[in-house]
């Protein structure tokens, strides 16, 4: 087993993950080079199952955005998008992705791509935010290809049939438009199969995350943020399910052998908000040095679409993709968080207020205070951004996090 400098154990499955992700990109490259295959671009919580079932290879610009963030180059690219009229205050996935495109650069060049795979069609769902529609529109104009969207109502409290049926109709309406481009006609059985594979992978992914309920936890948020790649980009294929079986077994094995992710886990935290992609390993080291494991997060838990049901694929797609945290009312969000806090035995919460992603910054409407009043679980708010490092003060956050852990120690051990 290999240990990193901080003593954090590296997951062996990371080697498998590398292959799984590289094969995924190879399939995209093959599709680009083979006339028979078409490429659809899709949002991270968009209708991936439908696209895969119709024979598309599916590319996710948000995944690319995260790669740009993790490669610490977003601030090199953002200015080019700003020069095109995109404000530095809007989604920095969008600005870094468009900026990199304008500069003709992509981390995929390391995998033999000349540029990001060219889309034949773009499909988004606004369940996460409306930025994605504007983001995809840029590429629709650039490549002169069709763009399709599902417009999901936001701030949902009850998931009434009226709402879900409305969204399901939008899913169905995609089919004839996709058929104009797709290599294959829509086939209900193939769609059902894809939904089933996606559901099974989501359930496995949830079970992987739930392994962190064990004390000490065999996995932490910073690992999970990397290992979530397949559930984001390969939902609806066997690849995602196969991968999470491997990861699940490794975590099981760790628990059986008493191996923890963080060497000396004393405090268990919940991460609310986007990861700081350019700080992922620094953060992992910092928390480990403070005997703290970030065991759960809204972010990683968002890709659990276990309501998908092959018996009713359109309705259940609409339900699953409208039920997720980011779509819900503040009240429902609070209840969802409360459940996680209990299930994972959380000592404290970190809210990352991500400057350019208001929809993933859940400390802006008093939720953090209301949750504190009900749970008495201390919280810390840190200011930063998912991709733009210029919005983050490392020194200030370091002091804040260290202090927060001392605050928890005082509370727990007094």
């Amino acid at each position, binding site marked *: 087993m290999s240990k990193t400098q901080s003593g954090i154990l590296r997951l062996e499955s990371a080697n498998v993950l590398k292959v799984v992700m590289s094969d995924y990109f190879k399939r995209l490259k093959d599709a680009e080079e083979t006339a028979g295959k078409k490429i659809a671009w899709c949002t991270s919580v968009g209708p991936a199952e439908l696209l895969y079932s119709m024979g598309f290879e599916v590319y996710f610009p948000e995944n690319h955005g995260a790669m740009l963030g993790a490669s610490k180059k977003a601030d090199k690219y953002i200015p080019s998008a700003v020069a095109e009229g995109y404000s530095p205050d809007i989604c920095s996935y969008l600005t870094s992705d468009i900026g990199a495109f304008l500069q003709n650069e992509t981390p995929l060049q390391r995998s033999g791509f000349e540029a990001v795979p060219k889309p034949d069609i773009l499909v988004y769902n606004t369940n996460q935010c409306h930025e994605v529609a504007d983001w995809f529109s840029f590429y629709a104009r650039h490549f002169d290809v069709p763009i399709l969207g599902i417009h999901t109502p936001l701030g949902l409290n009850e998931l009434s049939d009226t709402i879900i049926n409305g969204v399901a109709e939008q899913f169905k309406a995609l089919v004839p438009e996709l058929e104009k481009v797709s290599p294959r006609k829509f086939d209900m059985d193939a769609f059902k199969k894809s939904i089933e594979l996606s559901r099974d992978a989501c359930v496995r992914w949830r079970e992987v995350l739930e392994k962190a309920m064990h004390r000490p936890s065999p996995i932490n948020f910073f690992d999970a943020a990397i290992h979530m790649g397949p559930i984001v980009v390969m939902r609806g294929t066997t690849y995602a399910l196969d991968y999470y079986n491997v990861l699940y077994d490794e975590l099981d094995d760790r628990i059986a052998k008493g191996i923890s992710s963080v060497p000396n886990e004393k405090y268990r935290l919940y991460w609310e908000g986007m990861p700081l992609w350019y700080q992922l390993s620094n953060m992992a080291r910092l928390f480990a040095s403070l005997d703290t494991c970030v065991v759960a997060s809204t972010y990683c838990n968002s890709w659990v679409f276990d309501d998908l049901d092959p018996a009713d694929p359109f309705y259940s797609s609409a339900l699953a993709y409208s039920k997720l945290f980011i779509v819900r009312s503040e009240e429902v969000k609070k209840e969802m968080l409360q459940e996680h806090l209990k299930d994972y035995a959380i000592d404290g919460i970190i809210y990352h207020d991500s400057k350019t992603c208001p929809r993933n910054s859940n400390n802006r409407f008093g939720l953090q205070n209301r949750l504190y009043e009900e749970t008495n679980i201390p919280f*810390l708010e840190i*200011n930063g951004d998912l991709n733009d490092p210029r919005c983050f003060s490392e020194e*200030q956050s370091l*002091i*804040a996090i260290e*202090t927060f852990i001392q*605050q928890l120690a*005082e*509370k727990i051990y*007094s």
Partner: protein
Amino acid sequence: MLKLGIDLGSSYTKGVLVNDENQIVDQFVVKTGFDFKRAASRIMTKFEEDYEIATPVYTCGYGRDQVDFEHISNSEIMALSKAVFTKFNKKCAVIDIGGQDTKFIKINQQGQVDKFKMNRKCAAGTGSFLEEIAFRLDISPLEFNTLTDEATEEVRINSYCTVFAISEIIGLIKKGATIANIAVGIYNSIIERCMEMVAADETIIITGGVPEKHPTIVRLFKKKFSKVESPENSQFFAAWGNILLNSQK
């Protein structure tokens, strides 16, 4: 032997010497400049002239681990809270206005930190805001204090951003506002920024180098809120709290 606590802040480095009863015997402050190690050594050298100093030394602040001697480092927020609670022994909210950041800490009846917050990355609400504006107006920052005595009305500065605030001030000057009235507006702008962090009915303890050098801030705070206190020498509180934290472990 006396215990030494040092708070290595981004603008100033503060040192206190404490006896066995944890009372402050002596204190000294130097500008941090560009070198934390040098600032800490200057404090050490100064005290070594007259006292015998025990090791380890207790440090906190941005440069807490940038010292050349054996030390135990702490979070300055925990250290400051300890000092405030030792002094006041009650539930309160602390607003610490420093050169580069403003901190807000909520302390409960047991003296534990319930919540804390640091200001965002800009200068608003900090000493840098005052310094930058003073520089642009070509006066010394401390002059703002005396100027406010001549103020006849409170001019409002709306902008948080230092750059915007400066253009706003230039606009006010063009419209005939006096520099004395503007000075009050500048202080009030810092206070308003701080008040975003506390509830109106809390006992507020104001600490830090800025209120110590600019007593007008404390005076204006008291005008707006009923339960405001600001202890003397509060810029040394974190350095002192450092020692208190460790002596009770």
